[in-house]
């Protein structure tokens, strides 16, 4: 036996590395948000940016349970909705100026939303967190349907079909923001987006956050080291509900109206798609997803009525070919560029991109021609001055040729890569 003392290399990240990897990205994100109003953006930009901020927090909160907790939920909008409704009611109490609420600034309403969402999570999570996996997914779906149906029965809380509306320009003004003009609401949204982001990032660093990842990977082992996986899931679920409620509170202040539709299965599905398309294995993934899909939702829906079809295709393509989402693609490209042979990597990447582009052209022409054919208004799809009717042979030729060429090119590119 030699000397028992061994020296180990210190593997902990240095203070500089910690700052670079953990604090700096958040500072950059906050700085970007702070810089946006300086370029004098338009009203439309503000509208979309606000939606993005809300969706970023919402999608991140969803990823707390899907990505970090391994629980697939089809009813996350329920907590968003509860948070939003509670915040909406609080906004009306502020307007009435009754009791304690008279001194409560509208700016802090998302905190009320957080409480509402967490409370809903605590109540609903109690029966549903007993199970994980597929059963949990089905329960979340059932609960979402139940709550959505109940929303139309209890008008005093949910306001029936027309929902509940309020006025955000009441109560105490904070930071000199009257919350009236959209540019002032921007600061509110930006502030809470950053708070939500930092809060959820901090949560992943807590023991509970780590345990939630452990429960996702192996619930049995978590039990062996003395923790109750059901309780871990339950606690994480409450926090995720709370952050969803925070997003709901942001939405309540931003739109000044909340309807039961906000808690239906549609937004629940949308947040799932946002988080998954962004990439659930990365913390930043849902941010990418939220930004991209919010943009698609507001922009693409103006260009084409079949935008949900494109969304479905995008989602299926991500599930099948890039299960780590956009974040996975971005970081994969980053790694490839820094790899041993960036030249070859770029060539392969470009070939793949060209193939995907060709397939996309084929798909778009197919969908747009079919949509117009199906509507029967006699409209014709005319990209770049071409006249692509459904009787036109050229349209079908473009569809077939681009699709076949695209598939061939992508297959060739990936085969080439495997051989290399």
């Amino acid at each position: 036996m030699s000397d028992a003392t061994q020296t180990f290399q210190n593997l902990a990240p240095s203070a500089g590395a910690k700052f670079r990897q953990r604090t700096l990205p958040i500072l950059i994100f906050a700085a970007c948000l702070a810089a946006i109003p300086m370029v004098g953006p338009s009203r439309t930009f503000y509208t979309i940016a606000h939606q993005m901020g809300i969706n970023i927090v919402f999608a991140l909160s969803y990823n707390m349970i899907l990505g970090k907790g391994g629980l697939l939920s089809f009813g996350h909008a329920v907590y968003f909705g509860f948070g939003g409704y509670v915040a909406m009611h609080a906004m009306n109490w502020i307007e009435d100026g009754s009791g304690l609420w008279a001194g409560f600034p509208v700016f802090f309403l998302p905190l009320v939303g957080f409480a509402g969402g967490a409370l809903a999570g605590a109540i609903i999570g109690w029966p549903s967190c007993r199970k994980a996996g597929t059963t949990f997914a089905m329960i979340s779906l059932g609960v979402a349907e139940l709550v959505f149906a109940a929303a139309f029965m209890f008008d005093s809380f949910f306001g029936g079909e027309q929902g509940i509306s309020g006025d955000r320009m009441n109560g105490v003004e904070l930071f000199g923001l009257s919350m009236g003009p959209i540019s002032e609401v921007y600061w509110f949204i930006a502030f809470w987006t950053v708070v939500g982001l930092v809060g959820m990032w901090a949560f992943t660093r807590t023991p509970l956050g780590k345990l939630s990842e452990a429960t996702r990977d192996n619930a049995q082992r978590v039990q062996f080291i003395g923790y109750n996986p059901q309780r871990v899931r339950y606690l994480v679920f409450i926090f995720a509900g709370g952050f969803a409620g925070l997003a709901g509170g942001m939405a309540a202040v931003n739109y000044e109206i909340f309807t039961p539709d906000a808690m239906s299965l549609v937004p629940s599905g949308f947040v799932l798609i946002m988080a998954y398309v962004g990439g659930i294995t990365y913390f930043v993934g849902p941010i990418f997803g939220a930004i991209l899909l919010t943009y698609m939702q507001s922009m693409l829906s103006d260009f084409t009525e079949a935008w949900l079809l494109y969304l479905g295709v995008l989602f299926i393509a991500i599930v099948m070919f890039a299960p780590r989402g956009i974040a996975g693609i971005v970081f994969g490209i980053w790694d490839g560029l820094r790899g041993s042979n960036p030249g070859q990597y770029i060539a392969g990447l470009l070939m793949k991109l060209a193939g995907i582009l060709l397939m996309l052209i084929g798909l778009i022409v197919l969908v747009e021609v079919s949509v117009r054919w199906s509507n029967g208004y006699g409209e014709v799809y005319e990209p770049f001055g071409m006249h692509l009717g459904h009787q036109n042979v050229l349209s079908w030729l473009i569809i077939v040729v681009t699709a076949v060429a695209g598939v061939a090119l992508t297959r060739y590119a990936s085969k080439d890569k495997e051989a290399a």
Partner: protein
Amino acid sequence: METIVFGLLNGVSYGLLLFMLSSGLTLIFSMMGVLNFAHASFYMLGAYFAFTITGSTSFWIALFIAPVLVGLVGALVERYGLRKVHANGHVAELLFTFGLAYLIEEVVKIVYGKTAVDYRVPDLLNFAAFEIYGATFPAYRIFVIFIAIAMLVGLWFLLKRTRAGLIIQAALTHPHMVGHLGHNVPFIFMTVFGIGCALAGLAGLMAGNIFVTDPAMAVQMGPIVFVVVVVGGIGSLEGAFLASLLIGLLQNFAVGINASFAEIFAFTGLSPTSEVGDITISSLAPVLPFLLLVLMLIFRPQGLMGEQEL
């Protein structure tokens, strides 16, 4: 009495329809461990295919061809979609079918339009089977009951009494062993997936003309089928059968009861003008399956016939 008889008849026919859907779902689940989120979409496809085939030929031809077509679509989906995703785990599979449900709905909207299509009960069956208490019961519903029972017996016979069924049952629990014995397990999986989808298509064919055939029918039916499967105990065919009948009866009885909470709980002094007192049992009918689901999960988490899991 009238309410009870009609509730019973409608409940049984609806419950059997639910079972046609949930049996396919259960088969697929116990085989691949994945709940096919798009199952109700195949149900919708069944109705639309039947509409198209009925339009060009007749309902009786559609009765045979439409489910087969839906089954083929299902088999293709399994072969070129699910099998690829399988490597990424069950969540990825569930998400794949979730995306598929979106896709099918949008494609149906493009091909058949956004409004309901005129898919009708065939003339041959469009009469009143019998009349009791001054109300008639449509013959088509009797026909649905018969077809559903025939399918039930057929499925039971296939699974329990044939060699193919033996292999399928073995492949559900011991896929590797069955593979070693020289059977093509992926092919078996594809076939079972196809059969499950074909059953959903058959249910769609029968239900499309009782209810409405429109692009929203999948979204309406989907959650209820999942409730049936979970309440029955995930993976259990017998449980799915019981739960289907239970939910079918429950919903149809509830629709017939017009009493409000205030009347039922009058002894507690619940005011009929208050929000809770104002709720009638019939308005509660669409919510009942989900209420049942939540209650079931609180008191018996493994479902009616499911096995206790960790």
